[in-house]
Structures are given as C-alpha cells and as structure tokens.
C-alpha cells in the first residue's frame, strides 16, 4: 500500500500533464473562436495528425540511424509542427475561408465534414489499429521515500517524462505569449479579433492574419500531439475526437477567447478527469461523464467561463 498523500501527488502530476495536453489544444479553439467566431471542429483531428507525424518521425529518425532520444524528440517536435502548420493552413484555406461571411452553420458543417475526412484519411493511410511507441524516457527523479504500513519503502517520484512535458509546455507557452503580446503578428491578431473591418482599413492583412492564427493553433496542437504520443505510447486515428471535445470544454470552462483561460481550463479539466478516475468508484469508466457534467454546470452558472469577459447582447 502506498500512502494516500503520495497517491494524491502522483495523480496531481499526471493530471497536470494531461491538462497541458488539453490546454494546448484548447488554445487553438479559443484563438480561432476569438478571431472568426466559429468552433473549429476539425481541430481535434489536427492534433491527431500531429501525434501521427510525431510517431512516424520517430521511426524515420530510427531508420536513418539517429536513435539518441533527445535529438529524436526535437526532430519529432519540429517535423510535427511543420506538417501540422501545413494542415492548419490548408484547413482554413479550403474549408473555412470560402464560407466567411456566410451563415453561421455553414462553416460548422464543413468543419464536421473535414473532421470525418481527416479521420478516415489517416485511417486509410496508416491503418486502424492503435500504433504503439515504446517509452522513450524511462526513470525519474526520486522526491522522497515513505514507509508504508507493511514496512516497505515506497518512493514518490516525478518521472523525467512528466518533467519534460511540463518544461516543454511552459517554454512554449512563454514563447507563445511573447508572440501574442509583443510581436506585430500578435497585435494584428488582437486587432482582427476586435474588429476585422476596422483592422482591414488600417492596413492589416485580415486573411493573412486569420491564416496565421490557424497555423499557430495547429502548431500548438502538434506539440499536444507529441506530448500525447510520448505520454500514452499508443495512438490511433480516433484520439482526436474525444481530446478535441474535452479541449473545447476546457476552452469554454476558462472563458472562450481568453488565452490564459484556455490553459487554466485545460489544467482544471485534466485534474478533474484524473482525480475522478483515481478516486471515484468506477471513476475511470465515467470520467468523460464527469468532464461533460462540469461543462454543463459551468455553462449554466457562468456562461462566460472563469476568465471570460461578459458579453453584452446588442440589438
């Protein structure tokens, strides 16, 4: 038996790293929703593609003889970012841009269509069976040792994998925050979010900015895909749906349109899911129900989310 605090601590760490995956996807939802006001339903699929590219990248590195794990991981990260950027851009160009300014439902339907298409595209090209990846980073840092009642030592440790996930996410979030708050691209993006027509009048390339938003969202989803691949060690073509819906839940929970909110919502959803699975009776079967219940409750009592701005209906 391990003592209850170590169990709690393990759940906490695993909840946070899962939450980072959701948070990184949620940022994509929130950014796109903020700038074009639509749910990019295919974003979960972009994440799934990122995961697949990362997995294939590892095998490519292996095949050309670069088996050293740090290099392999960097290559996986870069390749999946680049490829995902192309997918994000194409998605916007093909499925959403022609419908800008049409009915609100039209892009949602193309998004669902794209999501179905991408799922089956990956299934056809890479097979339907789950694809495994061996744990790349074994071991961890021992934090402390506790004596359990039956007098054996139990070591509480944080694995290198989780440490790396947290470091990658934090570093990328810092870079991302810099892009949004300090660069011309970020300024253009925030301007388009407020008023596209005005932004266009002031010489901002609105189409380009929106495309860049999709690319940024897809790049972050690629990171989430890599983390997911490393963390679970097994992916299939269907992982995008549930992760996407949960990440959207996270975005709504944090307040859609708010970037820190998306990350906060992601971590909260990750924690709720992990703790529900870890503590509730038969929790692992019903953890998805718990997540959606949270969504419903939040929307009823605080429709703007935790960090969202109240939005005033105008006639």
């Amino acid at each position, binding site marked *: 038996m391990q003592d209850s605090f170590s169990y709690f601590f393990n759940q906490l760490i695993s909840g946070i790293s899962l939450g980072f995956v959701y948070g990184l996807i949620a940022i994509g939802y929130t950014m796109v929703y903020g700038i074009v006001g639509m749910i990019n339903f295919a974003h979960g699929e972009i994440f799934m593609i990122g995961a697949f590219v990362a997995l294939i990248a590892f095998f490519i590195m292996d*095949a050309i003889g670069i088996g050293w794990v740090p290099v392999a991981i960097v290559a996986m990260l870069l390749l999946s970012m680049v490829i995902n950027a192309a997918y994000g851009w194409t998605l916007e160009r093909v499925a959403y841009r022609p419908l800008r300014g049409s009915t609100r439902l039209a892009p949602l339907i*193309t998004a669902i*269509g794209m999501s179905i298409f991408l799922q*089956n595209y990956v299934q056809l090209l890479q097979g339907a069976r789950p694809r495994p990846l061996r744990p790349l980073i074994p071991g961890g840092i021992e934090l402390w040792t506790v004596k359990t009642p039956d007098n054996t030592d139990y070591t509480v440790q944080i694995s290198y994998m989780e440490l790396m996930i947290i470091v990658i996410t934090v570093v990328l979030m810092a870079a991302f925050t810099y892009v949004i708050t300090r660069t011309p691209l970020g300024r253009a993006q925030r301007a388009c979010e407020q008023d596209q027509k005005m932004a266009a009048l002031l010489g901002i390339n609105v189409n380009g900015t929106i495309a860049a938003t999709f690319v940024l969202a897809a790049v972050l989803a690629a990171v989430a895909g890599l983390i997911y691949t490393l963390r679970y060690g097994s992916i299939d073509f269907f992982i995008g749906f549930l992760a996407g819906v949960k990440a959207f839940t996270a975005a709504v929970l944090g307040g859609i349109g708010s970037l820190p909110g998306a990350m906060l919502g992601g971590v909260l959803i990750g924690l709720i899911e992990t703790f529900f699975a870890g503590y509730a009776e038969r929790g692992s079967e019903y953890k998805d129900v718990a997540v959606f219940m949270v969504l419903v409750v939040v929307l009823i009592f605080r429709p703007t989310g935790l960090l969202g701005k109240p939005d005033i209906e105008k006639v």
Partner: protein
Amino acid sequence: MTTDARPLDYGAMAKEAGLTAFVVLMLTIVLVGFELRDVPGALALFTRFPDVLAACLIAFFGRIAVILLREGYRGAVVVGAGAAALLLLIGLLPETLFGTATAREYAEAYMPFSAPVVRWCVFAAAVFLAVRAALARRSVRADAKSREAAADRAGATVQHVARYAGPLLGLCAVALPVALGHDQQAMSVAILVMTYIMLGWGLNIVVGLAGLLDLGYVAFYAVGAYTFALLATTEGIEWSFWVCLPLAGLFAGLAGVLLGFPVLRLRGDYLAIVTLGFGEIVRVVLQNWYGFTNGANGISGIPRPTLLGLSWEEEAPEGQMAFWQWFSKNFWEVQYSATHEKIFLFYIILGLALVVNWFALRARRMPIGRAWEALREDEIACRSLGINPTNTKLTAFGVGAMFGGFAGSFFATSQGFVSPESFVFIESAIILAIVVLGGFGSQLGVVLAALLLIGLPEAFREVKDFRMLAFGLAMVGIMLWRPAGLLAHREPTVRLNAPGKGKTP
C-alpha cells in the same frame, strides 16, 4: 479560342502553382510518404514516395489549369485536361474493352496511386476540368452572386412545386415496395434511408424551425431505442412495439425537456457543444451501466412488431397467427417470405416519417411554430413582444426529441438489437448534415440530402473503405458549393400584404 484571354504572367503562374505543389508536398510527405505497418513483433516503416510525387504533380498541373481557365485560355485547358483524361482512361479501362495489353503495360508506368477508386477520382477531376473549360463558362468567382440568386430561385421553384411534388413523392414511396419487388437488400436500404429522413425531419424542427443547433440528437434516438429494447426484453414486462412506441417518444421527449431546461438559455455554439456533451454522456452511461443496459454487449432478441397480432415469422408463436397463413386463409395463397416483414417495416417507418412531416408543416401555421421561426430570426425582438424564449425553445427541443425517440424505437425493432455503438457522435453529425445540406427548414431538401448521403454510399458498399472519406468530402463540397443548402429558400410564412397577391420577388 483565346478571344478573352489576358496576357499570361508566367513567373506569377509558376509561383502560384509551385506554392500549391509545395503545400501538397507538406501535407503528404509524412502521412502518405511513410506508412507504419504491423510486422510480427513490431512496427515497420514503409515508404510510398511515388504517391507523394504523383499528388504534387497533380496539384501543380491542376493549379496551372485552373489559372489558365481563370485567365481565359480555355483551348489549352481543354487539350491538356482532355489528354490527361485520355491517358488515365487507358490505364483504367479493362483490356477487353479498350486498351490492349501493351497499352496497359505502358499505362501502368505512369498511373498515379494504386487504389482504383483514387485513380478514377483523378480521372473524374481531369474530365471535369476539360468539360468545364469546353463549356463557355466564366470564372467561378465572378458570378458567385448570380449563382447564389439562381440557387435561391431554384429553391423557390422547388418550394412552389413541392405542393404537388410532395404528395407525388409520397405516392412513389408507398409504391416503392411494389417496384423493388422482393429484393431484400434494396428494401433494407430503403428502410435505412427512410429512418434518416424521419430523423432529419425531426431534427429539422429543432434546427430548421427553431434555429437551435443540436449536435446530440442521437442521444434521444438512443433513449427511444433503449426504452423499447428494455421494455420489450425485461422479464415480466415484455410489452409489444405498439405499446412501447408512444412510451419511447414520451421518455425521449422528457429527456429533451430535462436537458433543455438548464441549457437552452445558452447561445448557438455553446448549445451545440453542450448537446454534443450530452450525447456522449448518454452513450458512455449506456456503455458502462452493465446492470441496466448490458453495457457494450447491447441488448439482443428484441421482438419484431406485429400487425394487429399477426406475426411475421414463418412459424407463429403460441396463440398467434403468422401473416402469410392468415393472408392465405382470407385472400389468396401466398408463400412465406422474409421480405413481407421488410415491406411492413418500411410502411411503419414511412407512416412515422409522414407524421413528423405533417406535424412540421402544420406547426408552421400554428402560433407555436410561428414563435419558433420568429425566435430563430431574432430573439431580442421576440422577447420584447412577450414570447418566452426558454419555454418556446423547450417545446421545440422536446418535440424534436420525441420524434427522435419514435425513430429510435423503430430502429430497435427493425434491427432486433441495440448497442451503444449505434449511437456515436457521427450519427448526430450525419443527421445534422442531412438537415443543413438539404437547406434549413426545407422538407424536400431533407429527402434529397438523405438520399444523397445515405442512399448513395449504401449503393457503393464495395468501396466501403473510402465511404466515410467520400462522405466527409461531400459534406465539405456541397457546403462550399451551396452554403445555404441544396434547396434553400427562405420565404416568410406570414406576409404583410394579403395572401395570394403578388409573387415571390
């Protein structure tokens, strides 16, 4: 040929086509270029670079053709695309028909991709380009507005014709079992399409009339199906289909009201996500509550409906009579056939669907239906006129859910088996796609979209690997082509000037 051609900027053209090819390269290099395949004990990496090259070349030349078309060089495109189509055709046609064995051998060297379906698609694209160029059509973008207007006029015409075409189509549906004879496979497809038409009409009340975006419609379908399945198979209850049908509708409607009550205050997109979440909750609960729903194994042995106590089995159970025995006794001699039951099921679902259709058409003339439509158009104006938005939406939601429940119990009885697998999100998406593609609120549009989306893929079962892929593409394609739906035409139900006067402007 090049009367309206503009001078070409070759550099710009190469840049544009090159960019397209580059993007396609990025899209395909990893996912198409490499394949992870199971070999005993591990995963192995295989390459498919020729496919990547083919995709890039097709993208490059396709883009050039589109540019030429845009700049007015129709002749060049006709020749180029036509030649490409011809070359592809040699490789596609069976030797006996057209190509000689040697021609085939040469063709094998340049044919792109390995799957025949994909080759046919490339061929179709080339033919499309050539035909497009041959017909004197201007560029796509230039007349998007007039195209939209033409589509709207077509929608209006259809709506006008619908008054006569609707009943005619209904008659066709009634006569369908006669025409299809005893083709059991075809009847199954007809039942399936009819089920989706009914679901589409049911959801149309929620999405088309009331403007509420529901992504979890399948949850109510599931509630209806499980209501009947549980009532019919539980020891000691074992009620028949006809008793359970209203109950299934009632429970599904109740579920709709219960869900709707807290969430209907939310605006469009949020509502969509909450209903999606609700759909998932229902599925997860059905899957994990072994004691009640038998979990992922589902419920089997659900009885078939009877016709006034007449069974459709060959050997009727104790105290009942089989339909064919009864028919032979009272009318003329018939042999037992399994298709009788299919035909009966078809008429049940046709009747149910027509009830939904009738309700939707009548509701538009009633205060509640008008309130739904008004709410869809402008919620704030409705509120200021004293319409209670929440209650009005709730009725639409509940009524739509009830019809979903009816369809669900029919589904359970026609399949004889239900499991959570039948109620996944994709079903909701398909039903919503039927409604939206058909054109909101258009009853005929739903029929058309259901035939397109459900009937066509069923007809092409052989290429079933590509079925969902094509389904997704079709959803995107139709939406881009007709953003308002196939038969979209929104005419106000009430006009200020006297009815009968004045035509649609």
